[in-house]
């Protein structure tokens, strides 16, 4: 049993008394202590609390209580409430907020399944950004190449998992904030359907786009955790009351019987990205190619709505303490306050139309595959890059492939595709119809079985 084991392996070992949650936790905390300085993923470490919970898990296992995630350590993006800590959401401003009185709903759900929260993770300020460069806590570094971006905004979540400090982490995704860092750091990410998981106890960004989700190092781990996270909570108005739809038992069907297509056109990408998609097509034996009309407009509309909803949340703070914001985030929020209402209303009308269009398309195909990010992780501090041969600013453009789908709430799995040689990872998105997380996970599992998708601990962090 290694501290870099996957969640399912840890849970099996704890449940069968091959190891104890206490011993897993001691190793995990030592590993975080030894490695966090290199990647800057954790902002808070809950050693005492985690050890106390580990003892409780060991007692429960001894008493014969079934725990699907027994002793599995996990971290949470620091916009999730953790009892006793101010929920900083990557900001300086929130550091003075009152400490949270209870844990966020999803932390409580994972812990009820036997998992153990070990700390809070660094992120882009107020979840507004794709780079993981935080002006207050310092940038999260990519464990595969520490001079490069981890991607954001769930930067610490992806980096902590890629560095093998924890097998699982909770994140959130408004425009791609799980899928972009998952792609940059080479880990699996799941952004379930809008309304599937509870947002109670999460600091918001753009409410009509905010999705909770998670990252891990295997599809099995995503599925196990996702099953533990499901369940209705009354305190999130976006949540839909649905029965539990467990996916863990369905993974091994892989892509059998699934109609899969690769979307091209807008989602074409540069030559490296195209080569990855060709490998995916070959590995899954997918011949069907489709185009998604109006994807560019969907991305544009998502951006405008995000600007408007984001500033509605922060306007008062911008009036009174603008200097306390990360300047990059501040200026985008300020611009959001100045937009004509007609643009936003048009974006919302288009959203209805695009939603209908996607549902219709998803009657003819079960899983759509597109790249997760337009490039490998750029260097920290890099401001511009080539997008299809045109030099463009990086910050606003890393979400071009992710935004059209979160815009209409579709479930998506991001799967890391092993790069050739020493190159940094790339990722592919598997997108399904609303509530069909199982389809997206099965396609990702097939990629994993074919040896195409894999999430090893980053080389400099692997154990012998």
């Amino acid at each position: 049993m290694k501290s870099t084991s996957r969640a399912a392996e840890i849970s099996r070992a704890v449940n069968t008394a091959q190891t104890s949650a206490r011993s897993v936790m001691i190793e995990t905390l030592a590993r975080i202590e030894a490695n966090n300085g290199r990647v800057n993923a954790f902002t808070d470490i809950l050693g005492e609390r985690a050890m106390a919970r580990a003892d409780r898990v060991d007692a429960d296992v001894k008493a014969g209580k079934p725990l699907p995630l027994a002793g599995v350590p996990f971290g949470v993006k620091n916009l999730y409430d953790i009892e006793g800590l101010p929920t900083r959401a990557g900001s300086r401003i929130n550091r003075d907020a009152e400490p949270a009185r209870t844990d966020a709903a999803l932390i409580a759900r994972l812990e009820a399944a036997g998992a153990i929260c070990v700390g809070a993770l660094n992120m882009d300020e107020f979840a507004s950004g794709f780079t993981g460069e935080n002006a207050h806590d310092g940038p999260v570094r990519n464990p595969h190449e520490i001079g490069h971006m981890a991607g954001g905004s769930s930067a610490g979540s992806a980096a902590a998992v890629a560095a093998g400090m924890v097998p699982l982490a909770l994140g959130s995704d408004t425009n791609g904030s799980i899928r972009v860092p998952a792609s940059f750091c080479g880990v699996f990410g799941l952004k379930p359907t809008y309304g599937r998981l509870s947002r109670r106890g999460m600091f918001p960004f753009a409410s009509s786009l905010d999705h909770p989700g998670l990252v891990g190092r295997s599809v099995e781990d995503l599925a196990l955790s996702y099953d533990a996270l499901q369940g209705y909570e009354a305190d999130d108005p976006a949540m839909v009351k649905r029965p539990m739809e467990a996916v863990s038992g369905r993974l091994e069907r892989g892509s059998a019987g699934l109609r899969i297509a690769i979307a091209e056109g807008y989602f074409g990408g540069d030559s490296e990205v195209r080569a990855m998609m060709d490998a995916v097509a070959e590995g899954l034996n997918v011949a069907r190619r489709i185009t998604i009309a109006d994807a560019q407009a969907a991305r544009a509309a998502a951006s405008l709505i995000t600007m408007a909803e984001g500033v509605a949340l922060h306007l008062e703070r911008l009036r009174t303490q603008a200097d306390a914001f990360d300047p990059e985030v501040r200026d985008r929020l300020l611009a959001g306050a100045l937009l004509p209402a007609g643009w936003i209303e048009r974006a919302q009308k288009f959203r209805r139309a695009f939603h209908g269009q996607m549902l219709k398309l998803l009657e003819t195909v079960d899983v759509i595959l597109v790249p997760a990010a337009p490039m490998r992780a750029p260097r920290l501090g890099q401001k511009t890059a080539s997008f299809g041969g045109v030099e463009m600013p990086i910050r606003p453009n890393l979400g071009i492939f992710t935004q059209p789908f979160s815009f209409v709430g579709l479930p998506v799995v991001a799967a890391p595709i092993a790069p050739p040689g020493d190159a940094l990872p790339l990722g592919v998105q598997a997108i399904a119809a609303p509530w069909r997380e199982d389809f997206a996970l099965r396609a990702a599992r097939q990629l994993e079985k074919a040896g195409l998708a894999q999430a090893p601990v980053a080389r400099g962090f692997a154990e012998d």
Partner: protein
Amino acid sequence: MAPKLPDFDQWIDAMASVVGLEITPEQRPGVKANLKTAAKMAAVLEKAPVRPETDPAPVYRA
């Protein structure tokens, strides 16, 4: 609806006072850059097919 080449300084001055924000000289270049991006997005959206009578979707069920 989407202006082709708006005067961003004029836009900032007019709207900021309406919403009670003061845009400082330090903030102005960043705000301008973001408004420029937003204007491009609005222009893309302007060309997308939207029937005026369509219900908007600020709260929706996936």
